[in-house]
């Protein structure tokens, strides 16, 4: 039983709560669990020091963790942590660092794990059209999807050791163009409302944005919408050639439900579909389907949400 090393996930400079899910995933694989906190300030590790089921916490302190260079992240972590099977949260940056760390250690990497039975790890393939279970012999580097495991509780007081590390940074940031809108990205939202070609025009996406603002949702789009309208950027695209998402609630408006799109959102906990075509494939995957035009549905939907949440 090899030791398991959980890399705490940083989101905007704080510990992402899904880190507790990673500890639970590590326990499912078996062995002692060490949590490694990449940080610029060791006090950040205090947040995970109370996690249950952890045998050790290591705060790895380095300037590289303030930046985005995955080589810097991987080299700083590699030098500061023990051998064992390593678990990351399956975010865009962490999957990158996971791949690099695996290479440094001559290990294989298994990404986007959604189920663990000992050494058998299951990940979606073809964006969720099927699942693949692999058997891992020896150590590996693993990334685990958020919202799949229930996080461990807290109440313990684990010792925190601090290691100063330096990383090998290879790239140089020239400038960062701040995101123009404060709107959430679909990959980090708990609720997503997406529009398809049935919205009729890109201007009509403002109706989706209004609902999104009421419930704190991100706005997504189908590939058909992105391909048809220049104004709808690819960063909004949900599907096999866009982003794979698993929010608590996914609202599909004017989306027929092409296989491509279904692949990217079918693992959402609850799905609402609004479409005027009763035969649209999306209804077969919806928990709640509304057969109607978006023009007659969204105002009612919006009012009901405002009444409920306002």
């Amino acid at each position: 039983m090899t030791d398991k090393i959980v890399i705490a996930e940083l989101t905007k400079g704080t510990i992402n709560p899904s880190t507790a899910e990673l500890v639970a995933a590590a326990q499912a694989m078996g062995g002692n669990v060490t949590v490694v906190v990449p940080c610029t300030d060791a006090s950040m590790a205090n947040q995970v020091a109370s996690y249950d089921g952890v045998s050790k916490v290591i705060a790895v302190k380095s300037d590289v963790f303030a930046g985005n260079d995955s080589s810097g992240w991987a080299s700083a972590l590699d030098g500061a942590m023990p051998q064992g099977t390593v678990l990351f949260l399956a975010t865009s940056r962490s999957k990158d660092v996971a791949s690099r760390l695996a290479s440094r250690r001559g290990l294989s990497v298994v990404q986007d794990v959604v189920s663990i039975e000992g050494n058998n790890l299951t990940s979606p393939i073809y964006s969720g059209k099927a699942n693949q279970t692999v058997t891992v012999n020896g150590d590996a580097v693993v990334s685990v999807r958020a919202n799949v495991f229930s996080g461990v509780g807290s109440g313990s007081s684990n010792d925190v050791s601090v290691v100063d590390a330096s990383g090998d940074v290879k790239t140089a940031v020239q400038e960062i163009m701040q995101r123009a809108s404060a709107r959430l990205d679909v990959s980090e939202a708990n609720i997503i409302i997406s529009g398809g070609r049935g919205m009729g025009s890109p201007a009509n996406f403002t109706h989706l944005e209004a609902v999104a603002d009421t419930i704190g949702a991100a706005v997504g789009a189908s590939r058909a919408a992105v391909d048809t309208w220049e104004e709808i950027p690819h960063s909004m695209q949900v599907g096999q050639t866009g982003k794979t998402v698993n929010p608590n609630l996914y609202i599909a408006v004017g989306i027929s439900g092409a296989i491509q799109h279904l692949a990217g959102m079918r693992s959402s906990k609850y799905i609402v579909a609004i479409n005027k075509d009763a035969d649209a494939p999306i209804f077969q995957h919806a928990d709640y389907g509304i057969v109607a035009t978006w023009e007659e549905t969204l105002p009612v939907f919006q009012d009901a949400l405002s009444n409920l949440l306002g």
Partner: protein
Amino acid sequence: MNRFSLADTIEMSTIVVLVKQVPDTNAKIAVQGGRVDLSTVKMEMSPYDGFAIETALRHKEATGGTVTALTVGAAGTEKILKDAKAMGVDNIVRVWDDAWSELDSNALQSVLKESIESLGAHAVYCGKSAADTGAGSTGPGLAERLGWANASNIINAEFGDAVTVSMPVEAGVAKISVPLPAVISCDKGDFKPRKANVKGIMMAKKAKVELLTANAPASSVVVAHHSMPAAKPAGKTYEGGSSASEVVQLLRDEANVL
């Protein structure tokens, strides 16, 4: 004064683009006997690889050099190399050993590292992830093995002594200078893959696929089985827009997500 000509002192860029064959992303996937059954599914180049080819060709057009498309796969994967050739790459290479079956990421990246080194590449482009596993491990993993810089999920690039890429980061979009040699993985961005023209397609038909092989370490991660995702129980369907208020109430009371 030295008497070399300028051409001797400037090394032409050798650019490699990695491509992978995957099932058509519009195809249904079935599982038979614990394995995905692809016997009736059309195979194609992974969609993001088209963006990688386009970026590689623009790199060559900006700095000179050659573009080589490379895949790891059995003989059946040569069609995607011909597709790359039709788009305008100079050379096409297939890496394979009949002793290989499934390569885990460690084995695959070892094979790629050896192949890239034998081709003498200065820049490697690939798609941000392949449409089969969606893992996105190859670009950053290969960069680390080569000891090169890398950038992932780029949406624009400018080419010079270094490649200046635009990539999404937490705060927005960062412009990042990536020194060469480097491995760069491409998202769907500002560069639309060019369509093959008739001349390109004719040249691709005649083009010869160069074969390479390499050493692959034993795989420690092996596929145990495939399965279909659990089917969802049938949902509730309502007629007419006025039902939206009832659905909102159910999202609160039954689904507990509002």
